[in-house]
């Protein structure tokens, strides 16, 4: 049997709105994944360190603060610096459409906005893990 997919979920930056990420955490757990939740107020450096120690397949970031164009590219840069550029990053929260395109262009795998069904998130992560297995 294939071991469970490991996902790191983190709130990036000064943003205390964690209801969404907790709903996602439960949905991924119920889908059979191992969810490592870091909690609030994470820096890019802390998220990269956690992703490394925890050897995760995917990183899920939640932002509702509006700071995504500053913080997410910084996170991607730190991940690259530390040799974790192969770990895909998914972003969720309040991200305007025009910013979504910018984040995808910077290397974010997927952006999920309000109204996303948890099934879509589960499916996206599973597909990613399967592809990783083949590659």
């Amino acid at each position, binding site marked *: 049997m294939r071991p469970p997919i490991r996902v790191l979920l983190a709130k990036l930056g000064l943003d205390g709105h964690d209801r969404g990420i907790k709903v996602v955490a439960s949905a991924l757990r119920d889908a059979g994944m191992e969810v490592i939740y870091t909690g609030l107020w994470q820096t890019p450096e802390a998220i990269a360190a956690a992703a490394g*120690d925890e050897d995760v397949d995917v990183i899920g970031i939640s932002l509702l603060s509006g700071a995504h164009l500053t913080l997410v590219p910084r996170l991607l840069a730190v991940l690259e610096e530390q040799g974790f550029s192969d770990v895909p990053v998914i972003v969720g929260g309040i991200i305007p459409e025009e910013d979504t395109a910018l984040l995808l262009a910077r290397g974010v795998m997927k952006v999920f906005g309000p109204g996303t069904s948890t099934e879509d998130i589960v499916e996206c992560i599973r597909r990613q893990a399967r592809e990783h297995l083949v590659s």
Partner: protein
Amino acid sequence: MNSTMPSRESLGSLVENFRHGSRRALSRLITCLQDGYDSALIVPAMGPGDGRALKVGLTGSAGAGKSTLAAALIQQLRQANQSVAVLACDPASPLTGGALLGDRVRMQAAAVDASVFWRSLSTRGAAGGVSDSTAGITALMEQFGFDVILVETIGVGQDQLAVRGIVDVLVMVVTPASGDQIQWQKAGLLEVADIIIVNKADLPGADEAVGSLRDTLRVASPGRGNVVVLPAVATTGSGILEVWQAIEASYEQMGRRQTELPPKHELLR
């Protein structure tokens, strides 16, 4: 990353990188052990480590404060310039196999520190309060060269004792109002713990809990009168220095006993 087992060649390069102190190789090898690689194939290949780690188990019921105590101990140990690895277990769902590994939430202050390694583990259905791979992973962390390894069990109440055989010093964490003398006299963890911490000692009933635990150990548990019972408030750091001193004292005592007597804990299972 973790969804694929490494081939023999890449396992070889992982071992090589591990020997050169690669933290990522350590992390990757932990995944291999957790995913079912035989630790007998990996751990001896590393050769002897630089030293010996003090391995401390943290056990007790869900919500007693094990992770918060681990975070407080990390701060204490970092002040003394000791490196620390934490292995924090949380339960897997018996229905889906999934798990919410939430112990990291408690360690905010220590989040980025090259001398602190923190790994969250699902028990993946194991019954003893820790993952089956815990002993192998602990050995791997020891070979990596950490000074102290903290092994945190899932929330357990009475008889999940698997961690006893893995660590040098076992700390049981309880809270005020979590039991009376009869509760403490029941068989299980209290028979094998070296130190008992009454955490959240700023809550009412803490003094009574410390007193009744000490009394029970002295009066009703032959040979257990020297078990240390201490109050602490892990969220503020109150009492944590004393907890660490008790752990070190217990470790030294254990060393002395081992040279004089047969192994202290011969569990029946």
